[in-house]
């Protein structure tokens, strides 16, 4: 069994990995695209407006069946607003994840 153990081949004792000073990864924080994020927020507001427009403008009679225009407006507005809000939250989550991993909080 002892023959399988390799003998020390070098007298040199290098400092161990634990002796090296720990260096956090350098992370230059880039600027956030604030204008683009504002645009996404605007799109979410436009989606909300699209949902509410048929009822606010009186195109959809109260209690009556929804017209094709109302259905289109509500469906498309909900989709656009949902996608924009999801994009904003996704951006926020990705940015927070990156900051938690590489950012400098102190």
């Amino acid at each position, binding site marked *: 069994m002892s023959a399988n153990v390799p003998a020390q081949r*070098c007298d040199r004792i290098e400092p161990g990995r634990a002796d090296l000073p720990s260096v956090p990864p350098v992370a230059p924080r880039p600027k956030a695209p604030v204008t683009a994020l504002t645009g996404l927020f605007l799109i979410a507001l*436009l989606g909300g407006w699209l949902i509410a427009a048929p009822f606010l403008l009186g195109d959809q009679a109260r209690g009556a069946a929804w017209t094709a225009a109302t259905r289109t407006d509500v469906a498309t507005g909900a989709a656009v607003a949902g996608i924009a809000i999801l994009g904003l939250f996704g951006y926020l989550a990705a940015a927070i994840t990156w900051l938690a991993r590489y950012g400098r909080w102190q």
Partner: protein
Amino acid sequence: MTATSTASNSAASAGTGSNSAGSTGTPSTGTPSTDTESTRTESTGAAAAAKEETAPTGAWMAHAADPARFAIPAPAPVLAPYLGLVTSVLCALGGGWLLLAPYALDIRRGAAKLPRAAAVDLETGAAIVAVALLSAILFAVALFSRLRPQDDVTEFEIDEQSVQARTFEPESAEPDVDPDPEPEPESDTKSTEPPATAIPNSSSALRDLLTPLVAALAADLRSQEHGDQGRRQEP
């Protein structure tokens, strides 16, 4: 503070290294007594050189003194602008559908004047398309600027001292156990290599990191070769 503590650790490990030099320098199986004596005398003759070898190398000391210079850059955050880009494109598609919907669904129904619901659809759709395209362009610009390699990284700037330490570090790492050192191609190639200019890029930093490892490997192989030659000459 970190440099002094690591220096003391290396000094402590230096003593153990000199002790282990005599014990582990001989092969463990089937070694005659004359062989062990010769290796002992050889190790005691090279005690001073071994003490110098156990000291940390210049590159390691430079690393310990200024660790921020050897820091590895973190990857740029590209997921966030990518999500924003995808979202903006999807919203632009939704706005395009709003522009087409009054005609596709025939909301007009043959009327001479466009109904207000259709006008609202067209106006809101145009606004959504415009804002979404603008956001998509801005997200794309942010994404490409983060994907572009940064040439002006200041962490990899190398001054003249570090270049000198890197150039002379392999010679200091080589053990001088043999009094008549053989000419070796590795040291020649490293010595003939011109001192690198201070180019602040990642390749020089990678070379800084790999040079101590290569030097330690070369010293290890050389000492092993010397041990094999001494074993052959002994009988």
